């Protein structure tokens, strides 16, 4: 790329990002930072409870994910546990399906009176409402983050280290506990920090299990939502809370970075160290039963509960065969409101997926073309992913609440009137999930030998033709993966959808939220089942793409 083309490309790429992601969030932060000055400090003290709840709930979720994830990742990725491939797939579902749906599942199971578990155990035994319940659901839905961090770390631990401990006289279990576990612990901890961050930015679950409880549990995200609903007078406060929430991100990322660094020093850098899985011996049966029942309880049971709720005439009715009905299914799925929501959601998800792929690929190419400046390009592209959905949505809402007029050279003017249009949703989705496109493209691009493109140039192809003929087809699997991931995330997105859907329109995430919060749990359960089906289908396509890519190599 010639220097001029590079800079033009960077400029063309930065304009939409600054205009639609960086700019609005910076404006929001400026407003938030100014809020104490205009509103005084008193009200801030009254919001301390929400901040405390956010920290306590997110911390609890991180601890739960770590405590469950550590033994699970060792069993799944280090031992000869039977069916570990299938278990791994099932245990990654909690992150693939929106946390809100897991919240619905546990609400069906453990709401104080009508929950299925409470009917078995006696009314009021379990109560999923409140901080503990929120932390529990968030911890479970973050579990895959710890598992994946553990899997990646275990792959990099040199098996010779454990063998050395064995030769020194340690039993297999002792060798595992004294060598491998301390080595992968930093990675597991950094996975737990990501769970903390995810839980702190979560809106759906604390809303579902916190706001309607008595006494209500408020966290930062749900407070922001309530303040936004108040209208203009709440926006200043909401901005200040958004600033507080946003500050958690750099702090947590710093912690992850520090943990990752201390962990990396001691892990071998060599790739693909094939190690023999540790034989479980006589513990095999016990371990299998343990993992299977954990999986059944934590993953399958909530999903089954949602299915059951969708089939019951009314939630809380007597459990009997003749009480089951498909009425909700036909009612919800054929309702014009659902169809409209589905149409708009699929349209937005497709558009956002295309934007994510295009802008992500451009980011990866710019990253490569600029070398040192590339880190900055990546930061701009990946950073909105770390911004909580509530904050991003609020920022867009505020920035585009009025129309922007741009006047170029006197005569040519255009107006950016985005308030109350679905365009705002498209922008939010694309900005939030741009990281998926950037990361996937950058990784695939790093594996491409530049001489492949150079060979096309020597063969007589110009720069554009060479790009279309060689790197582009080779990047297609990675872009397909990015598109599917972004499509699924957008189609099932709830937080930003709730805040940004214009009056009179409907998208799936908002519809699910409304049905569950205000109308009717059975109808919501039907929609949740459809979400789960969509996610499972998407994951199957992803697995297929991965297998095809592996075969072609």
């Amino acid at each position, binding site marked *: 790329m010639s220097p001029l083309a590079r800079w033009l490309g960077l400029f063309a790429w930065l304009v939409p990002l600054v205009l639609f992601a960086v700019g609005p969030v910076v404006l929001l932060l400026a407003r938030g930072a100014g809020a104490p000055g205009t509103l005084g400090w008193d009200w801030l003290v009254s919001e301390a409870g929400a901040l405390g709840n956010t920290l306590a709930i997110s911390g609890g979720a991180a601890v739960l994910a770590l405590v469950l994830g550590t033994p699970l990742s060792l069993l799944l990725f280090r031992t000869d546990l039977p069916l570990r491939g299938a278990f791994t797939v099932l245990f990654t579902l909690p992150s693939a399906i929106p946390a809100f749906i897991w919240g619905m599942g546990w609400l069906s199971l453990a709401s104080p009176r009508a929950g299925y578990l409470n009917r078995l155990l006696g009314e009021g035994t379990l109560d999923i409402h409140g901080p503990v319940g929120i932390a529990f659901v968030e911890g479970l839905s973050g579990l895959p983050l710890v598992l994946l961090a553990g899997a990646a770390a275990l792959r990099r631990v040199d098996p010779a280290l454990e063998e050395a401990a064995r030769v020194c006289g340690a039993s297999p279990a002792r060798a595992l506990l004294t060598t491998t576990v301390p080595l992968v612990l930093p990675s597991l901890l950094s996975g737990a920090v990501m769970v903390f961050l995810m839980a702190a930015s979560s809106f759906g679950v604390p809303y579902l299990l916190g706001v309607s409880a008595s006494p209500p549990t408020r966290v930062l995200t749900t407070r922001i939502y309530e303040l936004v609903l108040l209208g203009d007078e709440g926006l200043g406060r909401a901005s200040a809370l958004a600033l507080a929430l946003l500050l958690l991100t750099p702090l947590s990322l710093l912690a992850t970075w520090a943990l990752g660094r201390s962990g990396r020093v001691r892990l071998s850098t060599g790739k693909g160290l094939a190690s023999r899985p540790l034989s479980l011996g006589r513990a095999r049966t016990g371990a299998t039963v343990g993992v299977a029942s954990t999986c059944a309880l934590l993953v399958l049971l909530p999903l089954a509960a949602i299915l059951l709720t969708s089939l019951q005439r009314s939630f809380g009715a007597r459990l009997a065969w003749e009480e089951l009905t498909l009425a909700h299914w036909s009612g919800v799925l054929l309702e014009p409101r659902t169809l409209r929501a589905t149409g708009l959601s699929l349209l937005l998800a497709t558009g956002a997926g295309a934007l994510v792929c295009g802008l992500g690929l451009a980011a990866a190419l710019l990253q490569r073309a600029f070398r040192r400046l590339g880190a900055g390009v990546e930061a701009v592209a990946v950073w909105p992913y770390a911004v909580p959905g509530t904050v991003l949505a609020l920022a867009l809402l505020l920035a585009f609440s009025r129309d922007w007029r741009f006047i170029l050279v006197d005569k040519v003017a255009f107006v950016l009137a985005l308030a109350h249009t679905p365009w705002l949703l498209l922008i939010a989705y694309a900005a939030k999930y741009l990281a998926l496109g950037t990361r996937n493209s950058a990784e695939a691009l790093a594996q491409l030998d530049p001489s492949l493109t150079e060979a096309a140039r020597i*063969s007589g192809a110009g720069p554009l033709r060479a790009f279309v003929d060689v790197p582009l087809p080779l990047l297609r699997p990675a872009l397909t993966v990015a598109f599917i991931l972004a499509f699924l995330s957008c189609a099932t997105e709830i937080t930003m959808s709730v805040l940004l859907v214009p009056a009179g329109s409907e998208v799936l995430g908002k519809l699910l939220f409304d049905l569950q919060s205000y109308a009717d749990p059975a109808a919501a359960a039907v929609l949740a089942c459809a979400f789960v089906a969509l996610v499972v289908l998407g994951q199957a396509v992803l697995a297929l793409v991965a297998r095809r890519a592996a075969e072609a190599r």
Partner: protein
Amino acid sequence: MAAISLEGLFKSYGATPVVRGLSLEVREGELVSLLGPSGCGKTTTLRMLAGLEHPDTGVIRIGGEMVAGPGVRVPPERRGLGMVFQGYAVWPHRSVEENVAYPLTLRHMSKTEVAAKVREALRWVRLEALATRRPHELSGGQLQRVALARALVASPRVLLLDEPLSNLDAALREELRAELAALRARLGTTLVFVTHDQGEALALSDRIAVMNQGVLEQVDAPETLYREPATPFVAGFVGGANVLTGEVREGAFHTARSGTVFQLSADTSAPPGPATLVVRPEDLALGEQGTPLPLSARLFLGHAAEYRFPVDGTLLRVVAPPLEVRPGQTLKVQLRKARLFSVG
């Protein structure tokens, strides 16, 4: 077919100079090797010739036409070249014939013409049977031939080869080397060949350009280069010669650090003063006369043995008939033929 001329090329990456004032003429139909250790700038020179890098200063002409120079920068696709990359760069998403056909499809040829030319190119490299295979089904040697066929198919004016044999095992390398020589005899294309393997360069080239630290040390026919190295570096790199620094005094060479004395034979002309002594291992003899040196190691080579003596912090290597000697013994080493380069 075209002649190439490189005039005063300079290229640096940041503050690191890679090529410093390189000038070289390649005649039409000639095969010139760029030979040197890794990091000497030979690959950068080749890439500038290909148009993949642009020289900071200097002029490149191919067939008389300026392709790089002040204000001129002809992109690689308009230089009419063929190139075989070190890692072959065979496109994994195209079959063998699709790979080879690519340069032709860019030249807007008819389908039948393309098919005929692809078949011919594949016959040159003996890959007709594998035309529909995918690259991941091929071995390293086969991939190398695909790359060669792709580089040749559009009858380039110049063929560039970047260490084409270095990723192959020894036996395959021999075979492909012979094939390359045969192909070249048949096609008569101008060829520039980058290698760090002096054996490869000596066997294939019309002329060899030896590079060191971005500078051209000597350009000559292989035999001239071997017999009459112009610099100690060329002697050391091409002939595997011993290189010692010191001083010539009273018909003898005194090494700089330990003052070890080697008598010079009568026919060695050497003015007194500081000099560099260059002597090939086979031009040293072990016997009754000469400089006594302690033997540090003996490597059996079959037809001969290599003896190593520590001198001035390096090892002096001598190739001579196998003798029953042990490390630690003192042997007498005599210069039979040596070259001396005056310093300064």
